């Protein structure tokens, strides 16, 4: 269908086009809820079955990094909302600036995730042949706090006593950890790509008070990805840290 200005040929009015875009984005987000939902359901059930192992797994996650990431994402939702507002009132430079800020924050989030994933790799916590829940306890690095290692060793011995198959069940935790955060990170990468496109469109002056639909719709998507993290963070990092 051809386009006249911003109006695509299948629509009668810009209003109809905007309504369709909004409904379409909300319906898409509903599908994403069901998509992540299957994974969250699997996690919840397994946490119920293997509380000990999942508690041990939670404990290996760095609360500081997770907390920082949570703050980063919430801030990025704020900057995204600000860019929608700025595009509503026709402030082109502000729209672009807020979009760039959102992109920077999103990239920072992904950077922290890389650091976390590297930590997991170093500690043999990536599911596969080399997975070993007590690797760090057995082979502490030079700069590891000895008191921390002691506490971990004690926690692990108690956990192994409660659950002889701790290694297998902890591997299940990390499969879900990488699955859930990985899927989330993939969605963020796609979001970042869309932000790059949005920034360029904003720079060339495409968005006006009458037409700012892409900013709003991608804003909705970004907020959704943020909300997924708001669920992920407590589920993975916070529950049952210390039993």
């Amino acid at each position, binding site marked *: 269908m051809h386009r006249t200005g911003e109006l695509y040929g299948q629509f009668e009015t810009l209003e109809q086009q905007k309504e369709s875009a909004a409904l379409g984005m909300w319906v898409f987000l509903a*599908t994403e809820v069901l998509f992540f939902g299957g994974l969250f359901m699997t996690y919840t059930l397994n946490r119920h*079955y293997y509380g000990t192992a999942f508690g041990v797994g939670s404990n290996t996650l760095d609360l500081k990094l997770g907390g920082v990431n949570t703050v980063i994402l919430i801030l990025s939702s704020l900057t995204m909302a600000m860019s929608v507002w700025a595009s509503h009132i026709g402030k082109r430079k502000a729209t672009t600036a807020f979009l760039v800020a959102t992109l920077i924050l999103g990239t920072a989030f992904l950077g922290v995730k890389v650091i976390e994933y590297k930590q997991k790799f170093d500690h043999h916590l990536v599911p596969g042949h080399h997975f070993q829940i007590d690797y760090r306890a057995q082979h502490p690095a030079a700069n590891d706090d000895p008191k921390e290692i002691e506490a971990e060793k004690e926690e692990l011995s108690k956990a192994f006593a409660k659950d002889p198959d701790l290694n297998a069940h902890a591997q299940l935790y990390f499969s879900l950890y990488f699955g859930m955060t990985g899927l989330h990170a993939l969605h963020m990468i796609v979001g970042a790509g869309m932000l790059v496109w949005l920034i360029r469109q904003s720079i060339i002056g495409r968005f006006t008070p009458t037409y700012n639909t892409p900013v709003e719709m991608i804003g909705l998507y970004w907020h959704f990805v943020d909300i997924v993290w708001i669920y992920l963070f407590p589920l993975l990092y916070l529950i049952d840290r210390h039993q």
Partner: protein
Amino acid sequence: MHTPTSTRAAVGAVYKMPQEHYLNSTYGIRSWLLTTDHKRIALLYLLSVTFFFFVGGMFATIIRIHLMTPRGFLVTPETYNKLFTMHGVAMIFFFLIPSIPAVLGNFALPLMIGAKDLAFPKINLLSWYLYILGGCFVLYSFSTGGLDTGWTFYTPLSSVYSNSAVTPAVLGIFINGFSSILTGLNFVVTVHTMRAPGMTWFRLPLFVWAQYATSIIFILGTPVIAITLLLVGLERMFHLGFFNPALGGDPILFQHLFWFYSHPAVYIMILPAMGVISEIIPTFARKPIFGYSFIAGSSIAIAVIGFFVWAHHMFLTGESVYAALAFSFLSYLVAIPSAVKVFNWTSTLYKGSISWDTPMLYGLGFIGLFLIGGLTGLFLACLGLDIHIHDTYFVVAHFHYIMVGGAVMGYLGGIHFWWPKISGRLYPEYLARVSAIILFTGFNLTFFPQFLLGYLGMPRRYHSYPPEFQVLNVMSTAGASILALGYLLPMIYLVWSLKYGTVAGPNPWPATGLEWKTDSPPPTENFLVTPEVTWEPYDFETRPDLELDHIVAGKLPAPAHGDD
């Protein structure tokens, strides 16, 4: 009593093919492969689903030939596992689920609501490409080792122990799932925002209501199987343990996640067909449909309740009696809206002016066969009975009655009903009627014996059987050969009609929908002027604008000369 041939000749004498329409407005392969016209995309889907129908049908043919003897003479047991698996995967994911929504829904839905296209035409094209990409992965899987897990992919066979090409297959179905999701999304938004002026919700044709309900299932159900099959693929590739008991995983969790989609999926397969029947019956009984709002509501009810019955596929897995009771009760409940439809279609026929055109033959066939298939579903939903007939040919017969006797007949009925609109031509009516009867006969001969086989204890998915079952098996295979003829004939005469069929004109039946008020074939933008709707649906009695169509079709006498 008018004879069909003279009506066709009369119609052909009145109308000529329109000069420019969606088929000839642009030329070249790029104009088809890069089209965003919903009508062309529907035809792209028509070709691709027909291809997969052949693929699935080929596997079915080998199965039926193999089952002519009790010991199974044609293939090894391992190959037999692959045959029924690939038959199921090809037919369910690449034929049945897309067929009516992606072919007839794509073509007719915008026309029926008076829109120029769907809300998101480019996403519509993307849907088709995702379907093709998914299909390529699955075909790759079929040709490099096949698939032997059953279309149900139960773990840990699929995720650990199978030596077949599971990973590319689950990847292909995953990608195809997004094709479905995007189609559903497109339909929901289109029905909400793109109805022509005057086309209120309760003036919508029932086919649109059916597509809407189906789209709800697409949107809410498909993502769950997507993530589930993704997890199976990950488990297989990286030796993770979600569903593998040896690593602490739970195979029953897989079944719950799988059936949470796959039960609503069967409603994806039948609801659109019911929508087609709701268009055909009033047209060929020339009477408004009985109980319009109940049929519309029942489509939504089936979609909603259908999400709460999945564990009736798991009665024999050791689930709790209380859970089984709940699921059995809900399964009985979901039959009620379906029954409402059957009663309403029958009431529509009562005191109607019946024409025996081909779409009507498919429609009537649907009602009878769906009745049998649906009722036998209730047998299976009965806990005590299911213990004996679960995993037997009774189940196989039940779902083939619904999916073939129901969905495929609905699909073929719809193809014939909208063929004049799609192609601008009429198919050869007598040959088509004969073909419909051949199909109906072949179908019953193939699948009715399977009810008996199942009841007598023949298990499904077995490559061999006790000798006393041979007669029924041979009957079933014989029926399959007749059924195959019933499928081949339309493919031949529909193609023939493209060049030699009588020109149809805008409204050959005549029917009351908006799609019949534009040319056959329609122009690319569907309507030259945006229509405004002031009439109720299926209003055969009082529509003055249909009078000429009725006269041309020979259903009303022409006015005597001097009356103009």
